[in-house]
């Protein structure tokens, strides 16, 4: 579905990440793990040309349906971002304009009211009639996270890119996210690219996992190999950090 052939991403002319070459196929959930500040968010933003060009430069190509997203024109990118590749960003509450009610976002996204109600109900959110009247500052962080996910799903995309979708939500609702992601890739023939720090969640959700450390991209491999593979000490140190805790 998506074929990334990126040679290098740099920020203010400092190289940040190199050799990012991977494909996303249908029916799979892909996860990127890595330390804080290693460039996970930068990587997923680079795929659809979302990085601020004043600071970042991306060398390479990212193909989606024969279109190179890095050199595509504005109008074409707009329709890809609106319909085909949707994001849920970290701190989703900051994705909303605090002076616009949720109605604005839902009306913009979808007219299929029954689908909206079904998804709101699934994620244990208030019904549309109530939710639409609320402003973003009136909901909790975890609710904003779920609302952002519902909006992304309503657009009917082929690829969902999720940055820390489960931060700020309880494990029962994380579990709901996981089931919805599986349904999205398996029943609707789509793909998910996920960034998370929750290793347990990544293990349960993903088909393949990649890793970023010190500017290096360790390509996707099947989840069971990622966790079994004892050969890479960097990944091992990440998964079982050498920090003891004394109560």
């Amino acid at each position, binding site marked *: 579905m998506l074929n990334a052939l990126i040679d290098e991403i740099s920020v203010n002319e400092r190289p940040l990440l190199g050799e990012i070459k991977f494909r996303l196929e249908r029916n799979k959930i892909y996860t990127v793990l890595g*330390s*804080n500040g290693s460039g996970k968010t930068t990587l997923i933003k680079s795929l659809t040309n979302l990085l601020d060009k004043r600071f970042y430069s991306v060398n390479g190509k990212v193909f989606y349906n024969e279109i190179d997203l890095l050199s595509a024109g504005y109008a074409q990118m707009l329709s890809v971002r609106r319909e085909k590749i949707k994001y849920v960003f970290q701190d989703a509450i900051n994705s909303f304009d605090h002076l616009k009610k949720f109605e604005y976002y839902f009306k913009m996204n979808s007219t299929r009211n029954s689908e909206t109600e079904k998804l709101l109900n699934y994620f244990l959110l208030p019904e549309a009639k109530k939710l639409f009247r609320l402003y973003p500052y009136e909901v909790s*962080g975890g609710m904003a996270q779920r609302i952002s996910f519902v909006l992304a799903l309503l657009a009917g995309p082929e690829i969902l890119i999720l940055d820390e979708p489960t*931060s700020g939500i309880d494990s*029962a609702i994380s*579990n709901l996210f996981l089931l919805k992601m599986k349904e999205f890739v398996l029943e609707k023939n789509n793909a998910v690219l996920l960034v998370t720090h929750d290793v347990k969640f990544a293990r349960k959700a993903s088909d393949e996992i990649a890793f970023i450390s010190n500017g290096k991209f360790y390509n996707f491999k099947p989840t069971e190999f990622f966790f079994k593979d004892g050969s890479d000490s960097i990944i091992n140190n*990440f998964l079982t950090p050498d920090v003891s*805790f004394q109560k």
Partner: protein
Amino acid sequence: MNYLLKLENIGYSVRDPSVTEGKRRKIILSKINFELERGKILGIAGESGSGKTTLAKITAGIIPPSEGKIISNFSDEWERIKTYPVQILFQNNGDIINPLRQIEPTIDETLQIRNRSKNNLAEKEKIFNSLNISELIRKKKGYELSGGEQQRAALARILAARPELLILDEPFSAQDPESQLNLLNLFKKINEEYKMTMICIAHNLSFLNKLCDEMIIMYKGKIVEKSLSGDLFSAPNHPYTKFLLKAGDYDLSYDELKFPG
């Protein structure tokens, strides 16, 4: 009783936006009671949207409760310094760190406010070192930091203000596994060295168990369980607590995830 803070029958409600006529209120929190002992760490977990952050804001005095009262025992120092004894490390630090300012001067400023006359260099170094904030990060501006780095920068500023009560709202969520454990150690250290009382809100129950002395589980705006943190795991009482513990493995099916009520 040697408590720092005591919440008595705290309730919080807002105008219900779905009701246009009359005065029906939507209840966010009701009948919240707890005592926070000086020097202890209290954990709060519970349903997403159950009012945890609202409770943190009420405890910190940012919003007034609709009902009940808060009795506090803060030191008299604060009158003189004219800053506030409670600080919150918020969930969404992207909103809080100024994107266009360097990190270091914001810490300098905060130290200045508390210690106008003194040379604060040693304390600043101590704060940066304990949070692993490198020379490089200190010189960066807010927009250049990753989510996890922004959080540590926010925490540095809070330590510079050195509150008597520190409230942590989801401190682990933007951190990698190693940083999560380092944070746990750091919070414990802050608690012991600065004798700082803490409230920690988190969804990861096993972290809370490691860090906290006591724990509160919230569901639909109420405290449904309050116990010593070890007991919560070995002998959970309320059905919602049991449900939450079970959901932690992400193994439940859709039908099993429907908590009754």
